């Protein structure tokens, strides 16, 4: 079971968990429009979320637009 740093919090996900699972675990809206994911600092295109398995100690950031600027 991979333990990753998801939006700054250490969390353990089931074996075989993917970036798409991390998006759900972060609480992003289900349709996931307006959401972007970075794994270890690099943008992970939406089309690759399902196929990208999370690795131990990976750093996952799940972002969306907020008021600001």
């Amino acid at each position, binding site marked *: 079971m991979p333990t990753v740093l998801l939006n700054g919090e250490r969390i353990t996900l089931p074996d075989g968990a993917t970036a798409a699972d991390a998006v759900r675990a972060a609480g992003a809206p289900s349709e996931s429009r307006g959401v*972007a*994911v970075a794994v270890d600092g690099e943008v992970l*295109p939406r089309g690759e979320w399902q196929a990208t398995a999370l690795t131990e100690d990976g750093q996952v950031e*799940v972002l969306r*637009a907020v008021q*600001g600027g």
Partner: protein
Amino acid sequence: MAALTIAGRVFHSRLIIGTGGFRNLELMARAVEASGAEMATVAMRRVDPTAPGSLVEVLEGCGCSILPNTANCFTARDAVRTARLAREALETDWVKLEVIGDDKTLLPDAAELLDAAQTLVADGFTVLPYTNDDPVLARRLEEAGCAAVMPLGSPIGSGMGILNPYNLRLIVEAARVPVILDAGIGTASDATLAMEAGCDGVLLASAISRAEDPPAMASAMRLAVDAGRLARAAGRIPRRRYGEASSPIEGMAELT
């Protein structure tokens, strides 16, 4: 009034609105509507499952296109990554590029800003950089391929207006891309002065969002931008040291 064109996209409003500082989405929506803005800038942050409503849907409902920004990035690396995440999330290659160099004044870091601008332009972004009121840096950003330059009037959120109108005029005179006054606007007259100085548009957030009545201030800003634009085009009278009567001297009655 002539439209504003940035990177081939036409805007009928010359006011771009920032979304930071509104007490809630409903108030923001009313202010955005009142401002007439057609583009609104948003920040990218970690997902908060407790956050109510969808900012993007509210803005699009107001007829605004979304301009993601790199607010609070302190390095070119962070700004470039944030821009790429925003492009993925929001399906736009437009970005308001902001690279801060000092956390007290929030002034831009010129070296990091230029570095990030070059990287993002090469990566296919339409880059609108928030920049110092420095004519040389503005020229360098334009040469780097930025679609506009967005000099500050004064620090972000300070409401001090335009502190260096001379530099702003130099930027306007030299620029071949639109000049958008970004940051420092405190009230309507500041926006008018920016447009009278020859800016092509104004970007502001706090002056509206932190006003006592944001929708009313948004209406004021809309009129102020239009007034400044019209006055600039109309050609103001020269300043004189002494009075010059506007009534004829001839034909005065002898009343003694």
